[in-house]
């Protein structure tokens, strides 16, 4: 029994026991369901072993939506706890665990896979490629992310959740103050999915640099491809810093080294610096692809080409550079001195300039356009004013002297949610509606989608704008309760109502998906939005080879050229197409990584070593494997093309 005691949750509650039961029931239901409907083979052949960028993208998308609800459950519990003064719903320990997992899940396991979903689905189509440069590596990236997320998510029923904040500052996150294995989960789960992110970065950069269709020079790439490219460049430079920081944090916790301790020469501020040298670029990794999606959507639904293409690209390059020069602004109050703080104040405010350029470009794209207020466009139009408010409060926070007032208050919480929700989440939802027909061949219902948009926007304003006020009045973040005398009660109750409206909005979106699966007409054609870029020049849903013939591109709006200038996109005859083979190894590697990670979390060295050997065995196996892929014959392509009504055949 002693062996099993280490897996017990140190601070249990009825809710956690209920979750355990729920997890077991749901897992059983999935296993029974798959067996009953004889879907195991289908699941393995079509999804678990796939190397198709579109299917991998869809798996990212499903994971992201699941994690959105996981992180959302944390959020609604936090707002419920704070809705009234001296509320007893949660105790301090549970509140700590919840705000920690909320942050990690939303950034690492919701926002990241969401952008990877669109990168995977859209980028090869936008540049006219058959797949990404390394399809097998792409599958490994996904499974590392997935099993990293699973490892993180079992923490609350096996061994206890991390509770040192999503930033996990040392010495709080050290073994002295965080005794449970929770922070081990944090270090190792993020490490595993971080390796996946890094490999996605390498994959996308190579794809974009080497696999563009004939005629597509760098400055003719659609804006989302540019945004993906810049985000991946940031990934290459930022994620290794996180890798090392997490490695050091892990050895501090597991092997009692002295990187971040307060004794024997350790330096706790080293963690804070490393974390934010990764952490600040990370938020630009999220926002740049979001900007890219807005650019595509605003241009499409305004019926005009994107205003200021070159300045859009230039501003992204400048944002990427500046993103590495501002990390200290996350801890102005932690003792750098006036000169350092001033420098980082200025570099932080400088980011507002290229971002402002982009805002004006979007406004000028819409100027005099015939705007169609579809759901994706509504999100994009809602984004502009809401995100601008978030940007302005960001400049307020950037003033280091004033930051002593704002630091670690609800004002900060309001600010970053104000940038991430209208910035990233709105973009992801806009992209979800916009690219849904691309992925599945039917549209999401517009009317239900608009309801969700209004619930989400109003809910967002109600949930976060009151926090600006309570924050300025001094309500600290990460405090599980407050006294009635503070007067924070009514505004926090408003925030709770807002969070409730947002919950309803997300439920409406899921309802919309289910409703549209059942009721939406199929056969929407290849170009349901009257779009402008290359991804809409192939069929919906996209055949596995993407384009029957390689497109020849003449501008950044390849499809618009076809429609307005009579440009001939597809020339020549159909030829056989080379495709990569499926493989089960990426999935198996993910499982082994999960076992290795779990063993490290609990310091079970024997299984950890065995699992590491298993990982190397997979790599050696891959080295010796001779897999030159397969060819799709001309007859097969022609047969597939004719099922789509022959628009491009």
């Amino acid at each position: 029994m002693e062996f099993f005691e280490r897996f017990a949750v140190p601070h249990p509650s009825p809710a956690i026991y209920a979750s355990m039961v729920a997890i077991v029931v749901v897992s059983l239901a999935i296993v029974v369901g798959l067996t009953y409907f004889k879907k195991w083979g289908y699941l393995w052949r079509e999804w678990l072993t796939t190397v198709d960028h579109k299917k991998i993208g869809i798996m990212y998308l499903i994971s992201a939506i699941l994690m959105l609800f996981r992180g959302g459950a944390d959020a609604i519990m936090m707002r419920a706890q704070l809705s009234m003064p001296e509320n007893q719903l949660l105790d301090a320990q549970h509140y700590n665990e919840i705000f920690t997992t909320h942050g990690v899940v939303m950034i690492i396991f919701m926002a990241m896979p969401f952008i990877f979903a669109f990168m995977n689905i859209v980028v090869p189509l936008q540049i006219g490629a058959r797949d990404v440069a390394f399809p097998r590596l792409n599958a490994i990236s996904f499974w590392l992310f997935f099993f990293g997320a699973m490892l993180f998510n079992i923490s609350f029923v096996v061994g206890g959740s991390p509770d040192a904040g999503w930033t996990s500052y040392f010495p709080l996150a050290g073994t002295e103050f965080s005794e449970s294995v929770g922070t081990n989960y944090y270090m190792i789960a993020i490490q595993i999915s971080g390796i996946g992110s890094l490999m996605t970065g390498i994959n996308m950069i190579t794809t974009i640099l080497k696999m563009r269709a004939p005629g597509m020079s760098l400055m003719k790439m659609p804006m989302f491809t540019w945004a993906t490219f810049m985000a991946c460049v940031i990934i290459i430079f930022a994620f290794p810093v996180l890798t090392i920081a997490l490695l050091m944090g892990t050895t501090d916790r597991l092997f009692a080294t002295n990187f971040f301790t307060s004794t024997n020469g350790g330096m706790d501020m080293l963690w804070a610096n490393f974390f934010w040298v990764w952490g600040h670029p990370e938020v630009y990794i999220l926002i740049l692809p979001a900007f890219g999606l807005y650019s595509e959507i605003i241009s499409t639904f305004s019926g005009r080409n994107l205003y200021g293409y070159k300045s859009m690209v230039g501003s992204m390059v400048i944002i990427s550079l500046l993103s590495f020069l501002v990390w200290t602004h996350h801890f102005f109050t932690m003792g750098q001195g006036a000169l350092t703080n001033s420098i980082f104040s200025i570099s932080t405010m400088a980011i507002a300039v290229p971002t402002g350029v982009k805002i004006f470009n979007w406004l000028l794209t819409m100027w005099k356009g015939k705007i169609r207020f579809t759901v994706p466009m509504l999100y994009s139009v809602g984004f502009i004013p809401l995100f601008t408010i978030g940007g302005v409060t960001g400049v307020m926070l950037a003033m280091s002297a004033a930051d002593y007032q704002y630091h670690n208050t609800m004002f900060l919480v309001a600010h970053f949610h104000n940038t991430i929700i209208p910035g990233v989440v709105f973009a992801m939802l806009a992209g979800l509606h916009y690219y849904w027909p691309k992925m599945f061949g039917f549209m999401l219902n517009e009317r239900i989608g608009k309801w969700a948009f209004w619930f989400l926007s109003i809910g967002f304003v109600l949930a976060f704008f009151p926090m600006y006020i309570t924050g300025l009045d001094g309500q600290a973040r990460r405090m599980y309760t407050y006294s009635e005398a503070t007067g924070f009660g009514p505004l926090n109750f408003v925030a709770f109502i807002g969070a409730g409206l947002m919950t309803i909005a997300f439920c409406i979106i899921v309802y919309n998906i289910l409703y549209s699966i059942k009721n939406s007409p199929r056969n929407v054609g290849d170009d349901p939005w009257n779009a402008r870029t290359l991804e809409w020049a192939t069929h919906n849903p996209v055949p596995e080879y993407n384009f029957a013939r390689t497109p020849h591109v003449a501008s950044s709006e390849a499809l618009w050229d076809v429609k307005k200038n009579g440009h001939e996109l597809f020339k020549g005859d159909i030829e056989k197409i080379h495709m990569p083979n499926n493989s089960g190894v990426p999935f198996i590697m993910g499982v082994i990584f999960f076992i290795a990670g779990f063993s490290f979390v609990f310091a079970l060295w024997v299984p950890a070593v065995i699992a590491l050997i298993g990982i190397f065995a997979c790599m050696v196996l891959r080295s010796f494997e001779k897999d030159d892929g397969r060819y799709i014959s001309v007859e097969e392509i022609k047969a597939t093309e004719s099922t789509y009504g022959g628009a491009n055949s």
Partner: protein
Amino acid sequence: MKIDHTQPLEYGTHQNQLNILGFWIFLGAEIMLFATLFTAYFIMEHRTGNGPTGPEIFEISPVLIETFVLLTSSFTIGLAVHAMRIGRKKAMLAFLGITLLLGLGFLSVEIFEFMHYYHVGATYQTSGFTAALLTTLGTHGAHVTLGLFWGLSIIIQVAKDGINARTANKSFIFSLYWHFLDVVWIFIFSFIYLKGMM
């Protein structure tokens, strides 16, 4: 697979070109990885707590042997790639073998060096300085160890299949990796050992 004969064999197919570019980007990430380790080391260099300082534990002879052995291995893998380009399989295998033996020699001396640190009281847990030192050296050493296994599997494949677009591509990428480890070692030698001993 179409092979383009105007290019060296390792660049011969489109996928080969992708592999090489992708690996260069990976090396970019590796540079960031080691840059972070060096940053940590420079910050921790004098944070020795109750433990020994750098000048007290560094010894010049094992470090010189390691440097000499590893730099030589970088030369021999260059020769291996040259042999590959002129299609001399036996010479290529011989030079790859010598490279790996030199790598093994490097690793043995490094293990000896780590044991020395342990005996003079500079363990992983001793201080911020020793943690940063041993993590930086250890990460490099782990890369060399991985390289030994990687190189071995490439030798087997070249011996079995000969020099073709596939094995040439693998060997070339492995040589990039090996040169990179050498470059990192030059920085370790200069900025950890020499700086620490002066």
